[in-house]
């Protein structure tokens, strides 16, 4: 079974530029999550989708971050404009029923 796919794996951008990350969850998983993990910290939930509807986006900085999950499958997370403090790993995860969440390898963002 293929895991959660993310791209790009690494991205370096200048502050005020924009960046987009893509995620393809495990086939059949209705729930998709985006987490932000800053170095030395645990992952922090940014947004949770159930199919193509948003379940929770309370910790998403909506002035600069946006996410969509068209057709209830893959998802895109965008940051515009980026700030230095956005440097982090962006982890996509998915789950079906039950509580086991499967994470991708992450997209590493460095803002300079």
């Amino acid at each position: 079974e293929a895991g959660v796919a993310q791209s790009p794996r690494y991205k370096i951008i200048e502050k005020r530029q924009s960046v987009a990350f893509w995620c393809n969850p495990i086939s059949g998983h209705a729930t998709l999550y985006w987490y932000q993990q800053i170095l030395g910290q645990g992952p922090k939930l940014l947004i949770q989708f159930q199919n193509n509807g948003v379940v929770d986006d309370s910790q998403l900085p909506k002035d600069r971050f946006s996410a969509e999950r068209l057709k209830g499958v893959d998802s895109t997370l965008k940051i515009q404009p980026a700030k230095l403090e956005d440097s982090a790993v962006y982890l996509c995860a998915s789950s079906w029923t039950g509580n086991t969440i499967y994470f991708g390898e992450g997209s590493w963002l460095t803002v300079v």
Partner: protein
Amino acid sequence: SQKIEQNSEALNIQEGKTATLTCNYTNYSPAYLQWYRQDPGRGPVFLLLIRENEKEKRKERLKVTFDTTLKQSLFHITASQPADSATYLCALDGGGNKLTFGTGTQLKVEL
């Protein structure tokens, strides 16, 4: 506010010994508590889930306890091996699979 504490100092133990990691929380009533393993440059990998009405859960060399009175979970790895070296994250789920993670504890198992 909700707080999850894991020992930020790395835990170094000898191969064959039992590693015990601690997760304490405050201002939280989780329905579930989960433990994940994270290797450098990789995403977290699910290990074990324990429900609020369960005291203990085991899986091979892993054991998790959950004390809702003390607001604490202990994670044990018995007969530890160098391959167990990683960062271990605890995560609380108040419902709906919305996980709040601790900062993780790095475990190093030495020969």
